[in-house]
């Protein structure tokens, strides 16, 4: 399957600053999922977006699926140290097979 690129690869922010990671595909995706992986941990599902232009919020996290369904973003408002980890986007193709993006590692310092 195609590769889904995420930018940036790494970001270091001060606690309280905002953070955004972008997920880009060259072709239309049927859906996009977001996962968070804490250091030393395993990926944990955050959300799935399906509709063009869809926006969903979870407390300080805002997820968006582009109008063309080729890109997505995850925005965190006022980061906290508990937000540290790697954020992956992923999409399901045939047979629910998940293809993961390259990931964005977030570091938050006081």
């Amino acid at each position, binding site marked *: 399957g195609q590769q889904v690129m995420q930018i940036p690869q790494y970001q270091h922010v001060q606690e309280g600053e905002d953070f955004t990671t972008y997920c880009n595909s060259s072709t239309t995706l049927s*859906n996009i*999922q977001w996962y968070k992986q804490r250091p030393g*941990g*395993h*990926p*944990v*599902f955050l959300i*799935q977006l399906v509709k063009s232009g869809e926006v969903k919020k979870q407390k300080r996290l805002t997820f968006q699926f582009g109008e063309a369904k080729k890109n997505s973003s995850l925005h965190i408002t006022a980061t906290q140290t508990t937000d540290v980890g790697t954020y*992956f986007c992923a999409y*399901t193709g045939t*047979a*629910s*097979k*998940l*293809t*993961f*993006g*390259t*990931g964005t590692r977030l570091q938050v310092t006081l």
Partner: protein
Amino acid sequence: GAGVSQSPSNKVTEKGKDVELRCDPISGHTALYWYRQSLGQGLEFLIYFQGNSAPDKSGLPSDRFSAERTGGSVSTLTIQRTQQEDSAVYLCASLVAGGDYEQYFGPGTRLTVT
């Protein structure tokens, strides 16, 4: 209920030895996946089982890798004649195919080949 479990949590083996990694999916989950994650890298799909259908083996990197799923539940990933480049965390995930789309991941097995 219990989540996805994997064993062992850590495995150190010598180059050339065979290893078996085990995954116990969530009860009732009909789909099971294996992924590999090298240090600081993303997740690489290895193999997918769905019910009694033939598994999707398209992600297995070589014929040294194989996997079984017995009785539609427990799965074993076997790596024969291990190489140093096989060192990685091997993650298993399960879901209820046709229903919930969320994949539930196990804690992984960290394999180190010396």
